[in-house]
């Protein structure tokens, strides 16, 4: 079974360097326990998320869309409480990501798909969630542990999963 680590999630968001993309949405279904080391790195961050550090940067991890999308964004600073999430994961019981079984193609070939979400194309345009914005479809290659560009048949489905309700506050 393919799985992602917290460092893999952070690396996905940093695919292109800079701050061109503010979020990485990864599509998954099953929740499994993370490796021991990763579980211990998760800190509680607010009421609905977790924080972790990777390569000296802080990131926030949220579960959206009925726990079917894992969103990773950057954090300027460590979480306020600093409390470990390990004991407080509760029903989440940690996170390991596997293909979203709802997409039959994904389930059949074990694809791990993610989409970088970036700024609106029009700098001065409306801030509606439907305004055209940069995205970038990715596929995680478990053999090399790296993210690669994806332009296959599931791109349309991935874009449709970026529901307006999940718009990231502060995205330009």
């Amino acid at each position, binding site marked *: 079974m393919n799985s992602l680590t917290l460092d893999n999630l952070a690396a996905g968001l940093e695919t*292109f360097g800079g701050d061109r993309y503010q979020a990485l949405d990864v599509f998954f279904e099953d929740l499994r326990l993370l490796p021991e080391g990763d579980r211990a790195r998760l800190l509680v961050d607010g009421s609905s998320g977790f924080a972790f550090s990777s390569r000296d940067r802080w990131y926030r991890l949220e579960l959206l869309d009925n726990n079917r999308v894992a969103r990773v964004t950057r954090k300027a600073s460590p979480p306020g409480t600093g409390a470990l999430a390990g004991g407080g994961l509760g029903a989440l019981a940690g996170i390991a990501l596997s293909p979203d079984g709802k997409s039959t193609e994904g389930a059949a070939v074990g694809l791990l798909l993610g989409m970088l979400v970036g700024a609106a194309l029009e700098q001065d345009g409306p801030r509606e969630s*439907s305004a*055209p914005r940069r995205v970038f*479809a990715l596929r995680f290659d478990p053999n090399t542990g790296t993210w*690669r*560009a*994806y*332009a296959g048949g599931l*791109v*349309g489905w991935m874009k449709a999963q970026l529901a307006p309700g999940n718009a990231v506050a502060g995205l330009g």
Partner: protein
Amino acid sequence: MPPRPPFPDVPDDPAIDDIVERYLREMARYELAAQAVADRLRRELRAEARMRHLLSFRAKHPEDLREKLKRKVLEEDEEAASGRPRRYLTSQLYRNLNDVVTDLAGCRVVVYEADDEARVAALIDRTFAFPDRGERDDTKPAPLRQRGGYRATHRLVLASTEELSLSGAICEIQISTLSAHLFNELEHDITYKERLRKASPEERECLADVRRVTKLADRQVSHLMNAQRRGTAATDIIASPEALRFSLESMAERDLSGDFARLYQMLNAIIRPLSRHALQAMGQLRDTLEHGSAEALELDIGAGDDVIHIVLGLTQFREEFLAQASSFRGPRTPLRRALDALAKRHSVDNQTRVAQAVDRLTDE
């Protein structure tokens, strides 16, 4: 191999039988030649993402060759009085049959819209190499609009410049609309049969009606396709390579060339939603094309390929395009080669920047 004597210079039936017999032994080569041309055409037409079409190919049936040789000899007999030189001579047919009978390998592209006949011809002119026909200059004739009603565009191309076994093989490509093809086939049958018996007045009248109806069908299909494109444009969302091409051509106010299937795949994976609004938000297309064309010139690639110019001109997506190109599968198309050249230069630029940074650190 010279003809077996004593065949006359104007081929008679025994000479024609012998020529057909020799062709039978080489027929597989022309089948491969036609298939090679068809395969390449199919890829290019799909990438253009514009033209609905039907594509077929064949090696000429030996009996059709026999019929053609006999017919041409008779035609040249009738024209001999006017002093017109014969082409269908026994010596020429034995020296190089394909040079005289240019449709031993044949492809047919049937398009839905009349305007696409010229577009397919232009695509063929950009894609294929052409045989050296000397003074005959018959590889790219003007569209045929014959008095009898035959309507089509023809091209004579070299089947392959790489495959040794197909070296020198000529393939004839016929392009016509679906309606014109229907008329052309019926007209050919009746004209051919005229040599055995005259067509009846009823047959002639029906054929004239078919000719009128097929011309009307061509006009109406064009109207319908334009209405369909206007309807698609009104929805703003671009959901296919065809819709992308239509939107970009509307913005550029001219026809555009290149691999729109791949461009759609690339843009669809980096813009949400991909729409006419999004295309407009990316900047003036004219500027993008100009910038991309200048860069293509510097890289010495992609001349005349608008898709390559668009990709090179959209510098705000350069890293994304290069990342996508590294995952491309399939043949190394001109677009892929352009992105490889760009990646190579990008890498050299990065190495130079790193070296300069190291130098600065060393100086400090």
